[in-house]
C-alpha cells in the first residue's frame, strides 16, 4: 500500500505450502529491508528452500502474500522473478562450464550490433562488471578453467548485470576457501553499498556474523525468529534452529577422547609421501581406535593425500605402510581388498547412485561377496541392510526406498554403512558433514567416534575446525602438500590449527618439522 523507500524491500507473510497433503510451510514469514544482508537459517527440511522457491516462482504457494518493492507479486517462473529483480545463485552453481566467463554473464542478453552478437563489447562489459566486483579474470576463458570462487563471482556479476534488487545466495561458501570467502564477503558488502539486498543461506554460523545484518530462523516450516544478528549469539541461534539444547553433545565428545595408542602398530603410516603437484611430503600415522584429523586450506593436499592412500591417485615417492607392511596400490580395488575405505567429499558425484535403492547402495562394495554363481544372495543382502539401518539409525521408509529421496545426513549414513559392512581397518572421511544439517552432523560425528572406539582407525578431513577440535585425538595440518604440524591432546585448538594452516609466525618457528 505504501511504496516509499522506508518500506521493506520484501515482505512474505503467512506463506503456506503443502506437498501431497504434507505441510512444508505453515505461516512462514520473511521480511527483508533495503540494502540489507539477511541470513536465512534452519535445519534441512525446515522450509528454507521451499520458501525461496516460492519467492522465485519455482513453486506455487497455497496461501499467503508476497510484496516486493512495494507491489504484490506472484512470479510463476524463475525467469519472471529474474526480470522482476530477484536473482538466485544456486548451491550447485548453475552456469555453463564449457562457455566463456563473458557468455555466462550475458547469455540471453548478449550485446548486439547489427543484429549480431558484438563480442568485443560483450568482453569489455564483462571485464568492467567483474572489475567493479574487484575480480580480475580472463573473460574469454571457458568457465570450467576458472576456480570456484571466480565462478561464483561470475554468477553474481550475472545477477548484478540484470539489475537485481535482491540476490539470493544458497550456501555460497560451501566450496570456497577462506580467502575466497573473504572475496565473496567483500562483494556482498559492495552489493549492499549499491543498495542491493542479499539473502544469505549458510550452515556456517561464523559467516553469518561476519556479513549479515539480520537473521530469520526457520523450523518445521515456520518462522521461529526474526532478529538483528547482534541480538542473537551463536548458542541462541543453534538452539532456536534446533528447538533443543544441542551444544551439550558436542562438548561431551571432546572430554572423553582417549589417549592415542601410539604403542600399538599404526594402521596407516605415511613417510614422505609424494604425489603430483598437490602432495609434496606428507608424513603421519593413524592408529587403531584413533580419529586423526587432517586439516589444511583448500588445495593443501588433504583430499589428494587420502586418494593416494585409497589408490585413486598415483604415488610418486615416499613410503606407505599398512599395518606395518609396505604397500603400493594399482587401483582402489587393491586398497579396498586390504581394508581401506574412503568416503569422498562429493556424495552426489562420487558416492551415491541416486536411482538405486538404499539396500543396493549400501551393499555395492560388498556385492562381490554376496554373489553366488552370479546370483545375488537376496536374503544375506536383506539381513545386512536391516542390521545397518537399525545400527546407524538410518531414517528411511524401507530398504527399497530410492537413496535420492533421503536427506543428506541419511545418505551419508548409507555410505558409511557401505564401507562398514565389509570389514575395514582404515576409514577415510572427506568432509563427512558437508551439506548436512546441524542435528545430523552431531549424529554422524558421534557415530564416527563410536566406530573408532570399536577399534577402527579413522582419518577425517574437515574444514570445520570445531569438528576437529571436538572429535580428533590428533590433528595433522597440511600446507601446500607438506605435513607441517601435528597437534595432540591439549594442543588441539582452533587457534593452533589455523596458525599452522596459515603459516603464522610462532607456530611455524616452534614446530621444527619441515
Amino acid at each position: 500500500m505504501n511504496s516509499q523507500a522506508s518500506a521493506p524491500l520484501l515482505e512474505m507473510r503467512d506463506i503456506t505450502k503443502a506437498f501431497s497433503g504434507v505441510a512444508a510451510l505453515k505461516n512462514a514469514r520473511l521480511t527483508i529491508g533495503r540494502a540489507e544482508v539477511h541470513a536465512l537459517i534452519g535445519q534441512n527440511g525446515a522450509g528454507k528452500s521451499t520458501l525461496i522457491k516460492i519467492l522465485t516462482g519455482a513453486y506455487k504457494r497455497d496461501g499467503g502474500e508476497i510484496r516486493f518493492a512495494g507491489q504484490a507479486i506472484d512470479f510463476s517462473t524463475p525467469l519472471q522473478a529474474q526480470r522482476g529483480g530477484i536473482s538466485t545463485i544456486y548451491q550447485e552453481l548453475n552456469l555453463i562450464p564449457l562457455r566463456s566467463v563473458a557468455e555466462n554473464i550475458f547469455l540471453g542478453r548478449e550485446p548486439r550490433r547489427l543484429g549480431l552478437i558484438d563480442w568485443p563489447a560483450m568482453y569489455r562489459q564483462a571485464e568492467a562488471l567483474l572489475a567493479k566486483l574487484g575480480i580480475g579474470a580472463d573473460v574469454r576463458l571457458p568457465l570450467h578453467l576458472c576456480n570456484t570462487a571466480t565462478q561464483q563471482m561470475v554468477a553474481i556479476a550475472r545477477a548484478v548485470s540484470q539489475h537485481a534488487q535482491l540476490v539470493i545466495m544458497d550456501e555460497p561458501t560451501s566450496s570456497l576457501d577462506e580467502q575466497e570467502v573473504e572475496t565473496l564477503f567483500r562483494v556482498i558488502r559492495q552489493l549492499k553499498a549499491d543498495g542491493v539486498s542479499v539473502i544469505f543461506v549458510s550452515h556456517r554460523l561464523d559467516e553469518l556474523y561476519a556479513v549479515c545484518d539480520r537473521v530469520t530462523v526457520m523450523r518445521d516450516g515456520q518462522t521461529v525468529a526474526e532478529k538483528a544478528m547482534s541480538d542473537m549469539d551463536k548458542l541462541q541461534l543453534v538452539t532456536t534452529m534446533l528447538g533443543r539444547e544441542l551444544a551439550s553433545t558436542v562438548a561431551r565428545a571432546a572430554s572423553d577422547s582417549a589417549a592415542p595408542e601410539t604403542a600399538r602398530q599404526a594402521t596407516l603410516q605415511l613417510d614422505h609421501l609424494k604425489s603430483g603437484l598437490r602432495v609434496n611430503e606428507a608424513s603421519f600415522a593413524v592408529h587403531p581406535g584413533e580419529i586423526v584429523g587432517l586439516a589444511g586450506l583448500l588445495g593443501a593436499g588433504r583430499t589428494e593425500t587420502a586418494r593416494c592412500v585409497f589408490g585413486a591417485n598415483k604415488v610418486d615417492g615416499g613410503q606407505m605402510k599398512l599395518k606395518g607392511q609396505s604397500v603400493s596400490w594399482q587401483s582402489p580395488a587393491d586398497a579396498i581388498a586390504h581394508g581401506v575405505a574412503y568416503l569422498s567429499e562429493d556424495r552426489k558425484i562420487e558416492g551415491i547412485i541416486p536411482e538405486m535403492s538404499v539396500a543396493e547402495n549400501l551393499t555395492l562394495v560388498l556385492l562381490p561377496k554376496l554373489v553366488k554363481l552370479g546370483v545375488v544372495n537376496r536374503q544375506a543382502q536383506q539381513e545386512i541392510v536391516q542390521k545397518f539401518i537399525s545400527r546407524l539409525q538410518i531414517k528411511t521408509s524401507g530398504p527399497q526406498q530410492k537413496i535420492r529421496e533421503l536427506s543428506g545426513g541419511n545418505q551419508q549414513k548409507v555410505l558409511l554403512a557401505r564401507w562398514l559392512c565389509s570389514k575395514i581397518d582404515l576409514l577415510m572421511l572427506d568432509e563427512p558433514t558437508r551439506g548436512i544439517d546441524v542435528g545430523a552432523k552431531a549424529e554422524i560425528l558421534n557415530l564416527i567416534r563410536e566406530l573408532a572406539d570399536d577399534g577402527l582407525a579413522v582419518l577425517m578431513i574437515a574444514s570445520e575446525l570445531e569438528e576437529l577440535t571436538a572429535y580428533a585425538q590428533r590433528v595433522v595440518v597440511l600446507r601446500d602438500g607438506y605435513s607441517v604440524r601435528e597437534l595432540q591432546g591439549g594442543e588441539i585448538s582452533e587457534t593452533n590449527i589455523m596458525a599452522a594452516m596459515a603459516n603464522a609466525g610462532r607456530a611455524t618457528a616452534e614446530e621444527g618439522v619441515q
Partner: protein
Amino acid sequence: MSESIPMNAGHLAQALAAPIARKRSRWHLLRTQGVLVALVLLIIFGATRYDNFLGAYNVLSLLRYNSMFGLIAVGMAFVIMTGGIDLSVGTTAALASVISALLSPRGVVLPLAAGVGAGALIGMINGLIITRLKILPFIVTLCTFLAAHGLALLFAGNQSVSVSWDSGFTEIGQGDFLGFPIPAWMGALAFIAGGLLLNFSAFGRTVLAIGGNEEAARLMGLPVDRVKFLTYLMSGALAGLAGVILASQFGAGQPNEGNGWELFAIAAVVVGGTRLTGGEGSIGSTLSGVLLLGLIFNILNFENGKGVISLSAYWQSVIRGVFLLIVVLLQARLAQKEHEAGG
C-alpha cells in the same frame, strides 16, 4: 550495459577470433583444428599421387555430391551441440526425394518447397515430442527414422520414382550458377549461415548453453525448449533439402537411399571436434569433417582407377570406418592431453 562501440576495421577480425578462448593449450588448438590439418594433408597426398585430382571436374563433382551430406551435417551439428541426436535425417531425405520426384513435373518451386516442407514437418514432430513429452532424442528420432522410411516406400510404391526432365527440376541438383554447382552453393550458404548463427546469435549461444548444462540454461531463463525444437526443425528441413537435391541430381526419388546418412553426418560432426555430449562445437570444423569423409571415398576411387589395387565398395566402407576410428582415437587422445595440460 547497453553501451556500444563504434565499428572499426579490426572489429570483424577480432569478433571472428573472439569465440576461441585464449590461454588454452596447444592441445586444444590441435584438437579443434586437427581435422583441418588432416584435410590439407589428404589433399596434398591426392594432388601429388593422382593426375586430375585437383582438376575442375573432380573438385566440382566432389562438391556437388557431398553438399547433400554437408547440409545434413549442419543441421546435425546444431542438434548434437544441444546434447541431442537426430537419427531420422537419412530416411527423411529419402522421403523428401520421393515427394519432390513425384511433384517434379510441376516445376521447381513446388517440389522444392514440398521436399523441404516434409523434412521440416518431421523435424517439428521430433522437436515437439522431445521438448513437450520429454522423451529421449535417440528414441524419438529412431521412431521417425522408421516412419519416414515407411512413408517414402509407400509414396514411391516400393521403387524409385523418375523425375521429370522437362520442368527444370533437375537443375537443382545438376545445374551450375556462376560456374559452381547449385548444390554446392546451397551447402556453402548453409555453412556460412550456420557459422554466423552459432557464433553471432543468441540462438547459437543458447544451443551451446543447453548442451553444456541444460538445467542451468533453464534457470538462466533461456528459451530451452524453443531452441531445442528449432534445432530439430532445422535439421529436418535441411535433410529435406538434401533429399530434393538427391532426386534432382540422380533423376529419381529414391526411397531406399539415405540409410546411413545420419551416421555419415554424425561422423562428420564428431570428426570435426564437436563433443557428442554437446556444449562445444564448430560449424567450420564440421565442414572440414564432411570434406574429409568425402575425400577418402574420392581418393579410394582414384586408387582403384590406377589399377594397382581394386577395392570393392564394401572394402571402401571398411577402410572408411577404420580411418574414422583412427581420427576419433586421435581426438580422444588430444582431448586427454588437453585435460592433463589443464585446458
